[in-house]
């Protein structure tokens, strides 16, 4: 396929993916808005108003970036894992497998769809957050780059999960038992400075901590980790997961017998 054909193929998947999640926005976009509103009300307003500032920020201001990036992570992942697994389950993934599209384009199209949903949900949650606090952005470039790389990383994770999944149960195991605990322990609601030194060190092994803090840095200028280290770790994960996703697709793991 030449470049213009590849562009047409990529845009086909991306368009299809955006239409899919927008068509069912009540299931894909609205829940994040409602859940995150509850976080803002309960943790930010009710409990947060009783807590001392963290690193010079009110508790509400401290948790807003974490909640936004958490919504982006969850939705980027959920979009790709559910969409690609459905394509496998209904077998319409075969429409792409019989075509001359190279594997990297299929991965890129689905991942771009995941990024798109992550960004739409991120915007919704950001809009909700503006009802609770006066949002400022400390460094636009850092904030936007973290949003892009984090949603890319989680979309790739969702793709790999979908490739291995053999049932609808399999697409909820990783989010429930791995991602949710890591996200909650990844500094969304607290600074690791508050933890005993052993748990501080243990938290540094959690990759989500770097994404949350890098985004918090972009929004507020405050972070528990060095932003450059955070970027190196996120990019490292993206490269590894992307290569792995392509390898799986080329081998036909979970797709071709």
């Amino acid at each position: 396929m030449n470049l213009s054909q590849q562009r047409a193929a990529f845009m086909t998947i991306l368009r299809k993916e955006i239409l899919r999640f927008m068509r069912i926005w009540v299931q894909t976009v609205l829940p994040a808005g409602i859940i995150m509103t509850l976080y803002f009300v309960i943790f930010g307003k009710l409990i947060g108003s009783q807590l001392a500032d963290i690193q010079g920020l009110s508790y509400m201001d401290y948790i807003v970036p974490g909640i936004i990036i958490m919504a982006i992570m969850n939705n980027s992942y959920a979009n790709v894992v559910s969409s690609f697994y459905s394509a496998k389950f209904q077998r319409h993934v075969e429409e792409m497998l019989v075509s001359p599209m190279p594997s990297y384009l299929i991965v890129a199209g689905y991942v771009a769809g995941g990024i798109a949903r992550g960004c739409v949900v991120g915007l919704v949650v950001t809009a909700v957050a503006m009802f609770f606090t006066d949002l400022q952005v400390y460094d636009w470039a850092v904030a936007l780059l973290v949003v892009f790389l984090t949603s890319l990383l989680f979309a790739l994770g969702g793709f790999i999960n979908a490739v291995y999944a053999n049932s609808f149960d399999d697409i909820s195991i990783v989010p429930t038992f791995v991602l949710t605990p890591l996200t909650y322990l990844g500094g969304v609601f607290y600074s690791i400075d508050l933890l005993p030194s052993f748990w501080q060190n243990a938290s540094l092994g959690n990759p989500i901590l770097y994404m949350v803090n890098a985004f918090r840095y972009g929004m507020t200028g405050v972070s528990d980790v060095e932003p450059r280290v955070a970027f190196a770790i996120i990019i490292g994960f993206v490269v590894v997961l992307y290569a792995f996703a392509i390898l799986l697709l080329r081998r036909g793991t979970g797709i071709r017998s």
Partner: protein
Amino acid sequence: MATALSIHELKKTYASGVEALKGVDLEVSEGDFFALLGPNGAGKSTTIGIVCGLVNKTAGEVRIFGHDIDRQRELAKSFIGLVPQEFNFNQFEPVEEIVINQAGYYGISRRAVLARVQELLEQLGLWDKRREMARELSGGQKRRLMIARALVHRPRLLILDEPTAGVDIEVRRFMWDYLREINGQGTTIILTTHYLEEAESLCRHIAIIDHGRTIESTAMKDLLLKLHRETFVLDTRERLPRDIAIPGFTARRVDDTTLEVEVERSRSINNMFAELERQGIHVISMRNKSNRLEELFLGLIEAGKA
């Protein structure tokens, strides 16, 4: 004439250990209408799956218009359109979108394909249904949708895996006419079917696969010549005598006005009519007792078991 599909010593062993293909060889010429037959589990769908990139082969070589599917995978795939055995489109997408998206996967932009999509949906009687969700279509409409989807990028080789399974006779006849038409326009067609009269009526060449091997691959005409004997069923105007006999033929009285006659290929059928005429019996209609290809097919499969 160029070779559209060339398969040499194709083998497939599934992870379960099942040896689905033990050495399939096929040559399909460009422009041909080719039947790929075999009993259930013979390896037809596995062969098609490998050709189309849905199944990984274990060994062997596949070339599509001379392009090896291992070394020139993208180019080779660009020539093929596949109508699979089972519905494999997104049931929750509108008909038109399914066809447009398929073109997109072949690198054809939305704007460039709209006219082609309209042409195909009109030809296949789906234009009025274009905005309906695929799940709302009838079985025959879904089959036609899969044909439209397979043809949208103008493939040079169209592969249909039991395209008329479960459709009524009207839709089947429509599909036969349509396939003849696109074959006439130059598209090479490979068809698998369990309706042997369909294969006999449409196809010029035939291959039979059994137990993962090609057991016959020849011109349809040559294969039918191998049939040494045919059984005809005759309906007569007059009541047949109980002890009817036709010298030189094996005749069996079925009921008062129905007669079955076995005719050796070496004998002229005119002799049979002449003898019946002599006995004052007039034939008002005549048909084959069973499909000729069916008889040969069963004979070859039985020979394979022996």
